[in-house]
């Protein structure tokens, strides 16, 4: 069959250049310099151009607008006069009361006392919970033994410890701190453990291959890898500290316990002064929001962005 043999006969005389083309099987570059240039070209094609960061006004303006709308609805409801003014005070009444409390110095004292206790209690909780959490996450028998208990403690409302704490420690700061610890420590431990559980198994294998010993593995691979989950635990731990603190301050009043936001709230209840009650609630909420916005949100954003976990989220 001459038709078939013709192209076959031509094949060996193909020029070397043409052979080189269908050639993932052989070398595709002509030397180190050529390779460097090809790779540099491919690298720039495959990487995204750096994006500039600028102030996103919608991030500031939208929450402010939402707040304004809520306050306007509140004011509108009050001006309808459905309820007595002393039961449902308007925004301006509450603002006036906040001004009075500020003038008396009560507001500053209450915020400072609570904030200081909350932060000290939270930091001590972190210092206790972090090594305990790492140990539980890394040592299987310990985890099996104490894991359910720690999870259980997280479900138990820490207010339940207030009566016990008052009996043990009396009306002192120790009572307040004890309740804060019982709220924050289990939730930080749980956050850290779940952060460790979510580490891709590959990271440990890489650690082993690179020759990390147990301590290096825990501190240089496990802990940084678990950081997003740990940070979630810290956030929740702070929320639990703050809530537990308020509960303790509302219930345990007097003795050597200082005057905090919870105490202010309780005072409002005793005086049946709704403006004081509302002021205290809004202050407790405001402190919580400020801590989230000024402390946790920036840390979290930085952490996620540096790991490339932020793209596509609505954050």
């Amino acid at each position, binding site marked *: 069959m001459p038709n078939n043999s013709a192209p076959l006969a031509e094949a060996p005389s193909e020029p070397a250049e043409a052979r080189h083309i269908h050639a*993932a099987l052989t070398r595709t570059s002509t030397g180190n310099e050529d390779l460097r240039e090809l790779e540099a070209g491919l690298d720039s094609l495959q990487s995204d151009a750096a994006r500039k960061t600028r102030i996103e006004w919608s991030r500031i303006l939208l929450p402010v607008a939402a707040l304004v709308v809520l306050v306007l609805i509140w004011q509108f409801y009050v001006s309808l006069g459905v309820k007595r003014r002393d039961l449902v005070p308007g925004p301006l009444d509450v603002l006036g009361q906040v001004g009075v409390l500020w003038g008396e110095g009560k507001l500053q004292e209450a915020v400072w006392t609570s904030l200081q206790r909350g932060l000290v209690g939270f930091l001590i909780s972190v210092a206790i919970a972090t090594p305990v959490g790492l140990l539980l996450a890394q040592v299987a028998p310990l985890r099996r033994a104490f894991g359910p208990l720690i999870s259980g403690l997280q479900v138990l409302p820490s207010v339940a410890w207030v009566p016990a704490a008052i009996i043990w420690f009396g009306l002192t700061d120790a009572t307040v701190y004890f309740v804060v610890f019982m709220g924050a420590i289990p939730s930080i431990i749980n956050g850290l453990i779940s952060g460790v559980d979510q580490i891709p198994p590959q990271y440990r294998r890489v650690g082993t291959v*690179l020759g990390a010993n147990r301590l290096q593995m825990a501190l240089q691979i496990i802990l940084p890898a678990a950081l997003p989950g740990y940070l979630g635990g810290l956030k929740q731990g702070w929320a639990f500290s703050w809530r537990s603190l308020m509960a303790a301050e509302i219930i345990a009043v007097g003795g050597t316990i200082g005057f905090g936001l919870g105490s202010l709230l309780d005072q409002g209840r005793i005086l049946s002064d709704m403006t004081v009650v509302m002021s205290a609630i809004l202050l407790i909420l405001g402190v919580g929001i400020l801590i989230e916005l000024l402390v946790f949100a920036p840390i979290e954003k930085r952490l996620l962005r540096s790991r490339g976990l932020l793209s596509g989220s609505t954050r």
Partner: protein
Amino acid sequence: MPVVLENLGKRFGDGAPVLDDVNANIASGEFVALLGASGCGKSTLLNIMAGLELPTSGALEVPSDGAAFMFQDAALFPWLTARENIELALQLRGVGKAERKAKAQELLELVHLGGAGDKRPHELSGGMRQRVSLARSLAQDRQLLLMDEPFAALDAITRDLLHDELERIWKETGRTIVFVTHNVREAVRLGQRVLLLSSRPGRVVEEWSVTEEHRTDAGLAGQLTGVITARLREEIRRHAK
């Protein structure tokens, strides 16, 4: 002989053996491609050589200081920059701080990433990440380098370039490389020797040597690829019944 495998066997629990009677000798500075279809225990064999798993029978001889390992995904730590990833490998090896910095830069230059050291893994393309990963495994400074399908997830253009790159680095550093792949063309392109592993149980059934002529003559390389593919398919067909 940095690597000797003798009658090596591995089974998990009571299951069928994954590896059975594997025999191979790998010379110092040799580039061996370990080829096989899915389920032939290629990765298990590599893990055993790396000391990540223990064989259930047989004996093996590997360098006493262990082996460097490169995974299919780059497995870079996302909280570290490219440079820090390499520095971590050096640090865990016990290299001092001042020396680490210079050595990391040197390795980045070696994989043509001298300017990208301060980027995070997510800012790098797949090919760049694998090159950082290669630099990190070189930072371990082991004579034996085990590679588990390191280019399987890359696009064809990038993979072709990385083949050239890996060949160049192998020649520059004189490492002994065991390269696991399921890609016949890749095995022929890179290996000096291609070992074909059968599937279930895995066993070395045939081997071919690849000469310098195969590197430059696409026709010759294509012919060898055809031969090996035919043998591989025969091995796969055995499991049809």
